[in-house]
C-alpha cells in the first residue's frame, strides 16, 4: 500500500512536516517494499490560496491510499476524502518513525479536519 507522508526533506529521516497543504515534500512510501519517492510541493508552498486543495489533489494523483501528516484543514480534508484517501493527522518524528507509528496502529484516522481553514 502507498502512503504519502508530509516531510520537511526528501528522505525517510527528514522530520514530518506538520503542515499538509504547504508541506515542503510529499514522500510516497510503499509500505510493502519500503521503497519511496520524494515529490516536492513548491508550487503549493508558494500558492496565495488553495494550497490544501491542490496538495490534496496531487496526493490523490500520486495514488496514495493514506496520508500521514501533522494537521489537515477542512478543504484539504474534503478533497482527500473525495479521492478516497484515509487521513492520519498528528504524525510526528521522522518520516520513518511516522510510518512505523501508522504500521503499529498508533495513529488514528481522522473523521474531520483537525484545524480550521484560513478563510473562515
Amino acid at each position, binding site marked *: 500500500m502507498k502512503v504519502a507522508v508530509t516531510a520537511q526533506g526528501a528522505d525517510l529521516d527528514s522530520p514530518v512536516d506538520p503542515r499538509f497543504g504547504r508541506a515542503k515534500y510529499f514522500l510516497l512510501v510503499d509500505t510493502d517494499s519500503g521503497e519511496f519517492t520524494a515529490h516536492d510541493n513548491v508550487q*503549493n508552498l508558494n*500558492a*496565495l*490560496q*488553495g*494550497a490544501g*486543495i*491542490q496538495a*490534496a*489533489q496531487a496526493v*490523490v*494523483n500520486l495514488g496514495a491510499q493514506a496520508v500521514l501528516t501533522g494537521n489537515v484543514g477542512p*478543504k484539504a480534508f*474534503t*478533497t*482527500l476524502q*473525495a*479521492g*478516497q484517501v484515509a487521513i492520519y493527522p498528528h504524525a510526528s518524528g521522522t518520516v520513518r518513525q511516522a510510518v512505523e507509528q501508522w504500521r503499529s496502529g498508533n495513529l488514528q484516522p481522522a473523521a474531520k479536519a483537525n484545524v480550521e481553514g484560513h*478563510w*473562515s
Partner: protein
Amino acid sequence: MKIAIASGKGGTGKTTIATSLAHLAATDGRTVAYLDCDVEEPNGHLFLKPQILREEPINKLIPVVDADRCTHCGLCSQACRFGAIACVGQQTLIFTELCHSCGGCLLVCPQEAIREVPKPIGLLRIGTSGPLQFVEGVLNVGEAMSPPAIHAVKDAAPDVDLTILDCPPGTSCPVIESVRGCDHLLLVTEPTPFGLNDLKLAVEMARALKLRFGVAVNRANTGDREVWSYCRRQRIDILAEIPDDRAVAEAYSRGEIVVESVPQVAECIRSLLETLQSGAPA
C-alpha cells in the same frame, strides 16, 4: 470628477474627511455622490444618516459543474490560478469561497459542463443624505472576497458632478478595486511612524496605478515631522494639514459631520475640496 479617499493605515480619518468633503460639496449646490467602498466595515452612514430608498443583493458569479457532462479531465483545475477547483477520482470539487469569478474554468472546459450561477455576497444600499446621493455596499459576514461588492457599489454610482469614494484601508485588492479609475486620489495619513510606513506603501500603489495623488496629514500638530520630510524628498504635495482638536473627536463620537460642528476644520476641508477640484499639481 471622481475623488478617492484612501490611506495605508486604518483610523487616519478617511471617513471623517470623505463625509466632510461630500457634505460640503453637496451643500454648495453641485450634484455629489458619496460611495462607501469600505464594504467590510462601512461606517459613512453613521455620519451622513442617509435615507435608504433602495436595497439590492450583490452577487458574484460562481461555477457549477454538470456532473453528467463532466469527464473529470482536470483542465478546469489546472486553469484555476486561485486553486479553487480539485478533480479527484470521479469528482470535480469547487470551493466557491476561493473563486474570483474569472470565468477561466468555463472557457477551458471541453465538455461545456460548467455554467455560472449568482451567489449573494452582500447588500447594496442606495439613498440620499439631504442633497447628497449615497451608496454603500455591505459584505456578508464570513465572505472572504470584497472586490465584487466594491465593483457593485461603483457600478451603482449615479451620474453626478462630483463622486467621493471612501476607500477601505490598506493597499491590497479591495483598495485597488476602489481607487481604480479615479481622477484624483487623496492619501490620508497621520504624523506617526505607523502612518508614514503605510503612507509609503500607499504612494507605491498610487504610482503603480499611475494615479494623480496628494496627501492630507490628519492630527498634523501631533507626532513627529517625518511625513513632511518624506513628502518633500518624494516631491509629493501635502494638500491639507488638519489639526488635532478634541472638538473633532467629540463631534465624531456623536456621529456628527465634522465640517458641521468644527468651524476651523470646515475651513481646512473647504480649501482641500477646492484644491482637489482645481486640478492642482500631481
